């Protein structure tokens, strides 16, 4: 199947763009990574990642249909077996997957109903937003910040300056974690009994999803909003079953189970244009009766300013509540408190960006830089690097074996 996908991608790349129907778009990309270190011997020094993405869109009257799919080949353990995984519930990425499959139709004046599989983006603060914390992410590449789409229904409408959106997640799409113990999810791998390996146990995320409601209003230079949600938290809680550890000649194999807690949350957000700045603040209160998760009070402050074709964004995020377990094991709270500074700039030849994330608890951090060169309207070359640094107690410093550079070539159509 992989060979077929590769052949299909090559054939598609050869098709002249104008011959493709206007409703189809997509890209083919090959990407290579080179690392400066390894967390375990099974981590590769270099890694290849190729992707073929195809999207079709069609509007029939007022009804919008969209479908997209992805074929990919990864040369590391992040690649899963070829299985039917329409809701991304398997621990590893299937080589073939459905990314979008939705229909949107008007149900009343200024009210739409969207059904199917689609991606949500609620958070207004780049870098970190508690409004997005209930959305599943794929951490197969933890530096890629990839959101997973959901099977859901969404009702959205606007009346005057007020916008409303209600979402029902039909099934839980869990966060996809990197290979435990590898460079992207380093865990303590030495003990008095020798080396520890972690074994992901078969798990079935709960079927039930979540419900969420969001209200937004734009009043002059102010944007205000509020949201509430309830249901299953898609980020898992990890249970290390040392009681079931199996001794092997090199040490121990510890099974790791996953559990999904229920959580309720409410949040508010406000932003204002002030001269040359856009200032934002978000606050969220998250409640869970699960003793390993507990409650959280998360706040973010951000300031954004344009400088010609460049944009500077500074975000400060923190959690006022202590977590009952190591926050690194709670994923969406692992980073907090943190300062995030991002600079993006568009050039005639392409674009570049630098993002600096500093964990304020342990003094660890991550420096990311990327330069994209548009060779033509359809071909783009990207060169970048990620440099985690600092204390290994922090969630970013722990990724020191994931220091890397990457080079990608993308052809869009």
């Amino acid at each position: 199947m992989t060979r077929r996908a590769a052949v299909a991608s090559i054939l598609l790349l050869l098709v002249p763009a104008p011959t493709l129907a206007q409703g189809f778009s997509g890209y083919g990309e090959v990407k290579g990574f080179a690392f400066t270190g390894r967390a375990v011997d099974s981590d590769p020094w270099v890694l290849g990642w190729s992707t073929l993405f195809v999207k079709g869109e069609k509007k029939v009257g007022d009804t919008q249909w969209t479908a997209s799919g992805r074929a990919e080949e990864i040369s590391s353990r992040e690649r899963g077996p070829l299985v039917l995984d329409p809701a991304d519930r398997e621990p590893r990425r299937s080589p073939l997957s459905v990314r979008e499959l939705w229909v949107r139709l008007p149900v009343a004046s200024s009210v739409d109903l969207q059904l199917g599989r689609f991606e949500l983006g609620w958070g207004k603060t780049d870098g970190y937003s508690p409004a997005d914390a209930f959305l599943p992410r794929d951490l197969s590449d933890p530096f890629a910040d990839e959101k997973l789409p959901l099977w859901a229904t969404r009702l959205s409408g606007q009346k005057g300056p007020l916008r409303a959106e209600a979402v029902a997640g039909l099934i839980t799409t869990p966060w996809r974690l990197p290979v435990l113990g590898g460079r992207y999810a380093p865990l303590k791998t030495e003990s008095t009994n020798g080396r520890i390996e972690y074994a992901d146990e078969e798990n079935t995320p709960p079927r039930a999803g979540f419900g969420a409601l969001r209200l937004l209003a734009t009043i002059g230079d102010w944007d205000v909003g509020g949201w509430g949600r309830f249901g299953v938290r898609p980020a898992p809680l990890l249970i290390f079953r040392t009681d079931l550890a199996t001794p092997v000649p090199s040490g121990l194999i510890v099974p790791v189970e996953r559990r999904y807690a229920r959580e309720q949350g409410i949040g508010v957000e406000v932003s204002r244009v002030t001269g040359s700045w856009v200032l934002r603040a978000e606050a969220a209160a998250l409640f869970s009766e699960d003793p390993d998760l507990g409650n959280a009070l998360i706040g973010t402050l951000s300031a954004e300013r344009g400088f010609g074709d460049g944009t500077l964004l500074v975000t400060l995020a923190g959690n006022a509540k202590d977590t009952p377990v190591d926050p690194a094991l709670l994923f969406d709270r692992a980073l907090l408190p943190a300062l995030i500074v991002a600079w993006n700039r568009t050039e005639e030849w392409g674009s570049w960006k630098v993002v600096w994330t500093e964990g304020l608890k342990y003094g660890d951090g991550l420096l990311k830089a990327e330069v994209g060169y548009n060779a033509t309207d359809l071909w783009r070359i990207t060169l970048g690097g990620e440099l985690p640094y600092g204390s290994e107690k922090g969630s970013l410093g722990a990724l020191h074996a994931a220091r890397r550079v990457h080079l990608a070539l993308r052809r869009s159509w």
Partner: protein
Amino acid sequence: MSGTFPGSRAVLAAAAIFLLLGGRVLAGEDARTLLSEAETRHRTRSQEYTGELTVVNKDGKVRKKNWRSFRQGYAGDAKSLVRFTDPPEVKGVGFLSLARPGKAADQWLYLPSMKRERRIASQDRDASFVGTDFNYEDMEEFDHKKFGVELKGEQLLDGRPCYLIEAIPVEDGGKSVYGKKILYLRKDILFLVREDLYRRGEKEAGKRLGLSDLRNVGGHWVAMRLEMTDLKKGSRTTVLLKEMVFDRPQPDDRFTLRNLNREGGE
């Protein structure tokens, strides 16, 4: 001069000043009248078109983009929506601009990759609009009421006599990225055919917008070719307007943030 009475110089000077000031006031009224008349003549309830953009940088490298553009209202009460349709890297990018009387327009950019809109702060309005030579302020409909205007004379442009009008933004009109605009208004049809744009603090025009290939579509004059030249960078962006339609009723919710955020929405 011997028969002149004492103080006659002062009187003459006063008269000269009066005439000068009076002339300026009249000229100001004339420019305003001309622009008001132009707005009345060319006002349409709505406009839709497909834009084919060609961006040529100083080295001659060419980039193509396409958008669909919708407008309701005109000048000071205009609402506009632009949705890019090509190339893939910008497909689906949307731009909403809502004029506000006496202020800079409210503007938002929707990025499909982010799944949400981004508000454009007024100081961001000199940034390049999606890789073109237009900036965000250029994407706003020109509203002469936000400018102090003065008729500076007449000039031939492509063999056609034009009024030359200087427009300087008024402070309470929403801070403009430009300190001055020189407008070329064709005398025979009172149609704006060129703008020389001076950024604040600059003595030379930094950009020039040319409007050409004038046609009468459905009783309305329209320039089917727009060209924005960045005189400093040496680049230019040409927009060819196709499938032009005027006065088609627009859906109530087209110019809303909800619609801007609708993927595939127009």
